[in-house]
């Protein structure tokens, strides 16, 4: 007779470090779910933004725990360093009375509508993930130098996409500068 719990306990006692390494990813994943949930239900907008930041951090740690170092670090750098700060700035620069007013188009539907939309999106995503041809492929062996491999892929196969994104970002930057430019009075 074998119960799954006993098996888990046995592997834990045999080699605790390996066990920790294998199961560690559950901890940040749990934090990620809790923080994301808190970001949705929090009344205070700044608290919600901080919870969202925590979920970004947890997602980065999930990536790192799964062995995708590069993606994890980029997640932290871009989402925590830039996106979270932009969200916070946007909240601070908005007038406070606008924050308390609840007059959005979906206010009639309430939380039930939001939950329904979220559920449909989740089912659709899971459906796509499990039916995509990528899910049936076996996992490739991890590269010895992942960052170098990513760099070569970006500069080789995906160079057109990289350049297109660079042009897009430059255009966005110029646009932002134009909007922020002072109007010269004639």
């Amino acid at each position, binding site marked *: 007779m074998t119960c799954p719990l006993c098996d888990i306990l046995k592997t834990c006692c045999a*080699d*605790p*470090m390996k066990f920790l390494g294998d199961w560690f990813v559950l901890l940040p994943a749990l934090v990620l779910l809790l923080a994301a949930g808190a970001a949705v239900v929090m009344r205070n907008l*700044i*608290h919600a933004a*901080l919870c969202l*930041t925590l979920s970004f*951090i947890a997602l*980065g740690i999930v990536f790192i725990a799964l062995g995708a*170092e*590069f993606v*994890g*670090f*980029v*997640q*932290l*750098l871009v989402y*925590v*360093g*830039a996106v*979270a*700060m932009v969200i*916070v*700035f946007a909240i*601070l620069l908005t007038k406070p009375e606008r924050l308390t007013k609840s007059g959005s188009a979906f206010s009639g539907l309430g939380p039930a509508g939001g939950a329904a939309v979220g559920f449909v999106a989740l089912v659709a995503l899971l459906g796509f993930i499990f039916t995509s041809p990528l899910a049936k492929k076996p996992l490739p062996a991890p590269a010895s*130098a*992942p*960052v*170098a491999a990513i760099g070569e892929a970006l500069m080789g196969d995906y160079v057109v996409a990289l350049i297109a994104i660079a042009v897009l970002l430059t255009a966005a930057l110029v646009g932002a500068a134009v909007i922020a430019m002072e109007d010269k009075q004639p």
Partner: protein
Amino acid sequence: MNLIERAPIELLHWFLNLLGSFGVPQWILAIVSAVLIIGTVIGVFLGLFALMSVMERKILARAQNRYGPNRVGFFRWRLCGLFQPVADGIKMITKEDLVPRTADHVVHFLAPVVMLIPALLVLAILPYGRDMVPADLNAGILYFFAVGAGTEVAVFMAGWASNNKYSVLGGMRAIAQMISYEIPLVIAAIIAAMISGSLSLPAIVAAQGGFAWGFVPQWFVLTPWGFVACLLFYIAALAESNRSPFDLPEGESELVAGHLTEYSGFKYAIFFMAEYVGMFAVCGLLVTLFLGGWQAPLPFLVIVPSWCWFFGKVCFVAFTMVWVRATLPRLRIDHMLAFAWKFLLPMSFAAFLSAACWHYAGRGPLAWLLSLAIVGIPYLILGTAFSNRFAVSRRTYQFSE
């Protein structure tokens, strides 16, 4: 020579073997080894922080022609006031911890914690000596900046949770400053990574090893692009660690103490500590990227242990930061942001191009001239434009006399 050089590693191995001979399981040994390494690194940097907090005041005093702290000693011995950090620490711990009634208590409490974590985490990837790097990550530089991003969140949390207009203004300034100066900082670091062909810090140090003609070290700072990138990195590092002349977020003449206004006691001490440890970490990264890391400057000086060179260089860079603080006045906020976007950013792109040309022109004398021209011409153009734009006209007094 070899003994002192490898002393920290040998000591660790000796201790682990000793434990192993008592039949301690392997996984406990792994934990003990990790704890010992982490404890040593944090201990060394906290010691440096304590030393720096008194040395900074001493150096500033010397620059301003006064004595500085010279009283606190051990019983009857004054020891030039070297026990000042102990007195400061006791004062900070015993002070009352005031939290404003209207503050957001949870966020106010968490902000110093969030501030300290990234400052300590980034210490993990610095190569302190030959084979002495706690975590040799494949993407070391990326890790440094990714973890460092947490500092911005902490500053915002501190500023907003205090529920004080000076705190919020200081926090907003700090974030604007950090985001603006992060770009030249990262580009300067990327240049070093690009030339050495790796994001891993030990590999970057290895790429700067060896001596040209037997005596000139091949540090990146001794090339035209490397010199410019090193200066850009230094300036941006000053701004990132909120140090003078970029200490606007806590400019006491305008904002009381910025995001630190409502902090007192040990929470303030943690902010202070995190700032200094972060400053040492960024100095360590500068040394690693441009000043050859733990490499000795001359061949016959190799007998000095590599970790002595690393910490010596870090202390030198930290000393120059104090020197700059004693010399330069604080910038105005619009000047500071204009300086980042209109001068440092174009110059970092120029250094980037220059490094690429240096590499593809064969790294010889011709490459030298070419890269010198590519960074020199933009510097002259931007420099003259800036000195005309911000020229300080002579102050005329209308009503006096």
